[in-house]
């Protein structure tokens, strides 16, 4: 196989792709803000004076002389600060959950597509079984079985999110296994798992990378959704989902409370998606878009 493109230092065409630049810029900025949260905002749990500063619109200064870039919510908490501290939770949960589901999905899908006999049918059955579980009900139940927490959300999202990837890998591997170049590899004496790992999987990776990038965005959205329903990260710990939920009741008199975390969420998911697209095109130059 060719040397991996990320290892080729002088290859800069990836960085000239506007989607890659936008995606990386937004994600890096979000990660940086999340990591340096205490430097760019006051920890929301340390804020006081609830009554005097509630419902300030964006770009206003309260009577203590504190500037509020995105305004304040009904408890007088700075929306920007909650957004930045919420990014830590939302981004972390999304990334870890996808890592978990990609690992499971790749293993199950590849095995099911390659060993099509009893192994394949069993694994496909397992995948269908997991797919048929009503995810939201499962999440509702798990959240009531254990205390809702970030770790629980990661586990639940990871364990309920691998099936799409498994199915994509499975159909890709099945199609590839019937291709002439795989047959010739077999004819040349390459054996079982080696065919899968050296000849089939590298060609099946494109949809996995795209699905993983989309999955990061999706996981961040689902975490937000769960927190929105009150089943994810629990307030007062801010996550983008429970920030949107807390702004729901004040939509009429303080629309910025729900709007700001939503816009942040959309920006990050768009960035992850575009970066995934750019990576895909770079990995597979034959299909350069």
């Amino acid at each position: 196989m060719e040397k991996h493109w990320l290892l080729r230092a002088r290859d800069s065409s990836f960085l000239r792709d506007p989607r890659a630049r936008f995606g990386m810029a937004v994600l890096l900025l979000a990660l940086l803000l999340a990591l340096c949260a205490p430097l760019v905002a006051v920890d929301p749990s340390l804020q006081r004076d609830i009554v005097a500063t509630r419902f300030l619109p964006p770009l206003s200064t309260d009577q203590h002389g504190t500037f509020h870039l995105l305004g304040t919510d009904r408890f007088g908490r700075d929306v920007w600060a909650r957004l930045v501290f919420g990014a830590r939770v939302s981004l972390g949960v999304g990334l870890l959950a996808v890592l978990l589901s990609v690992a499971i999905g790749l293993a199950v899908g590849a095995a099911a597509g390659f060993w099509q006999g009893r192994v394949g049918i069993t694994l496909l059955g397992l995948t269908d079984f997991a797919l048929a579980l009503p995810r939201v009900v499962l999440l509702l139940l798990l959240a009531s079985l254990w205390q809702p927490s970030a770790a629980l959300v990661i586990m639940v999202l990871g364990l309920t999110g691998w099936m799409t990837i498994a199915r994509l890998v499975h159909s890709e591997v099945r199609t590839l296994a019937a291709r002439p170049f795989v047959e010739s590899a077999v004819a040349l004496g390459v054996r079982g798992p080696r065919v899968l790992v050296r000849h089939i999987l590298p060609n099946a990776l494109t949809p996995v990378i795209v699905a993983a990038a989309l999955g990061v965005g999706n996981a961040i959205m689902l975490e937000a959704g769960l927190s929105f329903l009150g089943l994810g990260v629990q307030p007062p710990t801010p996550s983008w989902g429970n920030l949107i939920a807390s702004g729901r009741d004040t939509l009429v008199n303080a629309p910025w409370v729900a709007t700001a975390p939503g816009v942040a969420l959309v920006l990050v998911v768009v960035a992850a998606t575009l970066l995934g697209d750019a990576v895909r095109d770079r990995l597979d130059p034959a299909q350069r878009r």
Partner: protein
Amino acid sequence: MLRTFVRRALAGMAVVMGVVTLMFFLIRMAPGDPALLLVGPTATPEQLVAQREALGLDRPLPDQYATWLSRFLRGDWGSSIATGRPVRAMVSAAWPATVSLVGLSLVLSYVIGIIVGAIQATRGGRLDTTLSVVTVTLFAVPGYWLGLMLVMVFTYWMRALPAFGAAGLDADFLTGWDRVADRLRHLALPLTTLTLIGLGGTARYVRGAMLDVRNAPHVAIARAKGLSPLQVVVRHVLRNALVPVLTLLGLSLPALFSGAVFIEAIFAWPGVGRIMVEAVGARDYPVIMAATAVSATLVVLGNLMAEALTAWADPRLRAAEPSAGAA
């Protein structure tokens, strides 16, 4: 081909059974006692025991399971612990609302998505870039947030569309077209939300799949034969590109139902999702089980249908030996 399909159908039934069984034991493992919720916190221990006995909750779990299963299969779905209403009546009253919402948005988002994706893949250039920005944004928008934003604009600011329920309070007094219009006005915001968030993903997928196929040898041959560009696109590119899209269709059904749960919560839409959320909160075992069984069956059916369609669209998956040439 038929044998494979029958085998997959049997496997599908096994899946539904497995889901229902898992769910049965899982909800009984969860803390919370429906009898306690029913008699209230002031009840004496004797009352609680009597209530549990009346509901059959004092018997061993496998025993409860066997009873529930045999009744369920015979069509006796019991009645709700929380409200006392027959479960079948509850589910059949709620089901049309969910199916009409999910079904309409599925059709709309796939039709519009395939058209937009096909335009992007064939036109390219600035139009493609613009549409890409639009679809990727739609893809990234969380449904409940988009719903809230639409409510903010169309209900609170413009006061144009209702944000709650499936019909107005006065719906029973309306006749003819007024009634239809009232329904449509209530459907507008939830349907728009679900369609918009589904559309982005489909368009992106179709565009990608068509571009994948565009460079395949058989397309070059079709062009070389002198077929018109439209014929090449429809017969040779789009048809091949639809294979992964069909797989996606089967996969997106459960996600769509899950998404509908959020949308139903936002818009107070009287569907199965809302019943489910309420039932889980009240530990209403018969209702949870019925809703689970029905939605699991639908998901399995959707996957079977997608698989059959995929086999129809891609002869290579039907044949025992691969055909050479087409890539």
